[in-house]
């Protein structure tokens, strides 16, 4: 089984984090019907807890569909700016022996992403500006290879847990 170097982890995780952040906040701003595709499919774990786990300003959302619906139906115009992004590898080998290639190994880790930024609410320039902090646990998209095989668009990383807060 291929092993990854520290450099590999740094490269894979930072590339993944940046790409994810760019796409995710664009979706919140302008492509809200796609929001739920950024989250892992809803499951209930053996211990009874559900995933994805979304905490937004101190509210737990039942699943990504409920979250997306809130954005589509109630959220005013937004403009997010991720001013600071950082990422660590949470678990370097999520599934033991899952695949043999380096490419498989690069897609067998979980990431923890921390974002700090600002969001303009309501309207361009004049709307209130808030500061936010958003933290994610990202996991590889298990469906990716299958979706890619069918020509569907697969997101390489999905949100398993998220904690968002307005902080300013």
């Amino acid at each position, binding site marked *: 089984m291929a092993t990854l170097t*520290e*450099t590999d982890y*740094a*490269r894979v995780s930072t590339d993944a*984090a940046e790409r994810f952040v760019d796409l995710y906040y664009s979706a919140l701003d302008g492509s809200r019907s796609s929001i739920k595709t950024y989250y892992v499919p809803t499951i209930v*774990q053996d211990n*009874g*807890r*559900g*995933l994805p*786990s979304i*905490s937004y*300003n*101190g*509210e*737990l*959302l*039942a699943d990504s569909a*409920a979250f997306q619906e*809130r954005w589509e*139906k*109630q*959220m*005013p115009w937004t403009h997010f*700016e*991720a*001013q*600071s*992004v*950082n990422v*660590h*590898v*949470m*678990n*370097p080998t*999520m*599934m*033991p022996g899952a695949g043999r290639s380096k490419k498989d190994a690069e897609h067998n880790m979980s990431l*923890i992403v*921390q974002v*700090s*930024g*600002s969001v303009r*609410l*309501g309207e361009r320039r*004049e709307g209130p500006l*808030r*500061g936010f*902090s958003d*933290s994610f*646990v990202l*996991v590889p998209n298990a469906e990716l290879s299958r979706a890619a095989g069918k020509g569907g668009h697969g997101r390489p990383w999905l949100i*398993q*847990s998220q*904690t*968002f*807060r*307005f*902080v*300013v």
Partner: protein
Amino acid sequence: MVARSKPPRAAPRGPAAARRQALRADKDGDVSMGLSIKGRAGVGKSTPPTGPRKDAAGGRPSRNGIISATAQRAILRQAGASDVSMKEVRSSGPRGGLVELKVTGWNKSKASGDEDGGVSSLLKWLEKKASVRLGSRARSVRIKKSRVEGSDLIVKVAPEDVPPLVRMNGYGWAGTTVSIERLGGAVQGTPVVSSEAERIKEMLRHVLERRYDLETKFLNLSALGQDEELQQQKIFESKSTTSKFFPAMMKVLEHSFDKKEDLFAAITSVSLANNDLEDLAAVTSLSITLPRLQNLDLSNNKFRKLSALDNWRRRFGQLERLILTGNPIEQNDPGYAVEVVKWYPNLRQLNNVQVRTEEEVANKAQITDMPFPIRSAIFQDEGGIAEQFVLKFFAGFDSDRAVLAAYYFDEHSEFSYAVNSQAPRDPAATEKHEAGEWEGLLKQSRNLRKIQQLPARQARIFHGTKAVADAFIGLPQTKHPDLAAEAKKWIVEARMVPGVPDPTGQSPNGVDGFFITVHGEVEELVASSGQIKKRSFDRTFILGPGGVAGVRIVSDQLTLRSYGGTQAFEPENAEGWNAEPTYAAQAEIDGAPQLPEGLTIPQAEQMVAALMSQTGMTLQYAKDCLDQSGWNAQVAVVNFEKAKAILPPTAFMSTAA
């Protein structure tokens, strides 16, 4: 802009003119225009008194023709710029000896039936009207002696009181027009005005004074185009003087007060009704002069669309009542009201219709239609592990980081920090931006937005106890607020996450760990200057089992940013700690012990309600208090009494006030 002047006695036209016909006397006896807008109350109850009539009894000569239009323009410019004290004008004239003034034309007044033929109420009115009320140098005019000679009232006043009284020549009183002129001696004692600019300034001051109501703190600038005194000055006959008049008047107003606070306190309501305004260009200086206005009447102008009001959309942050009725915008853009309400976060009434309750205004941070209101922290602990960790970690970070690193980190742990130098700052602007405020911290910041090269990215993440300890020690000395005593300065949230690496290797798919996010503030000691710098931070931990402490840090990410205040940490409203279906559903799935065993939600609600009525606390605070008191009602009351003094006002339900 203000209506182009028309001849003073032009045939009435339009509703404003029609109303102008309905002259009535207010309780002072001033003749005023029956301006009450179609039965809707204005922001203030007074209506503008008319300007002095033309020299009915040969008082002061009319200024018509004395000042050329060019001179007027120059004057208005100067009046706007100059800060020559109004005092000069008022104190001009000889000192000593009383001066006699003759008051005529009052005999047929409505007060003539009084025992004294209305003399005493006339005297009272003269004193009141002539007194300066608007300005820091306010002074009262006193009539020292008076006698009636036939149809004349002769009053004796100090020389400095002559100008304000003579100026009232032609004022309406109790249904009559009063003439006032100086007796014995022509020039002496009449205001010696040093320049044309001074003269204009005094005129504008006079207009303001006449249109100001002390009791209601109301400055009535409605129907300026019909103001006879302004018409006499031909203010509105040229575009140039028209555009300069209002800013000049605002300057005169500002200069009447020594301190801005006095001005703000003296005038809380302004009407600009009936001014034919199409936009705010001509009057926009009002928002500079009186930025803290609470009540504003813009009714019966010619605003056609929202953009006409654009100048003031970010002004008047304290505006509580606004009237826009009688403008074409009502028909053109029926949705305007919704927008206007958004512009003014403190607005309670628009067009005399309530648009916000006091309670809603109190929640200022609230964004209109924001579907994720700020709620208190979600802290799903297990056996107090997460709580103990947070308490120990920040205490250790402030005191001994090497020990802390050895205690919580192992060879797999990672730490890095990122500086967000662009983050929004505290809206209350308590901390100033300083040049180079991130110096020192930037050289290890791992903000991927700034650090693009892979080697730098790799070098700025610290792996293992030793590297983390070294990085910690390299950071400035810090002091975090006490988590218990200053809980309001923190948001700490915790949840379980699956898939955390298992150090024992027994669970190859990983184990459950804690996902902890902390937001708060920190005081840093700046080594170079010895100064204390306050910043805000966000910190995200992943905790897993193992290590000497029983839990170890798998990942520690810190974001440092400019101080952002704590207002975003305050729950916005108290609704729904168990009312949200999504929340309740999730709580059930989680089996999250929000309530102790055996306590049902209805019982808990009853306990919260009881504590609310007992303490006056809001739902959220009452609930939090019970939470922290293990849902023991008596303990909760004891804890409340202890914490009462340090609870913010927002902890309590607003009373009728």
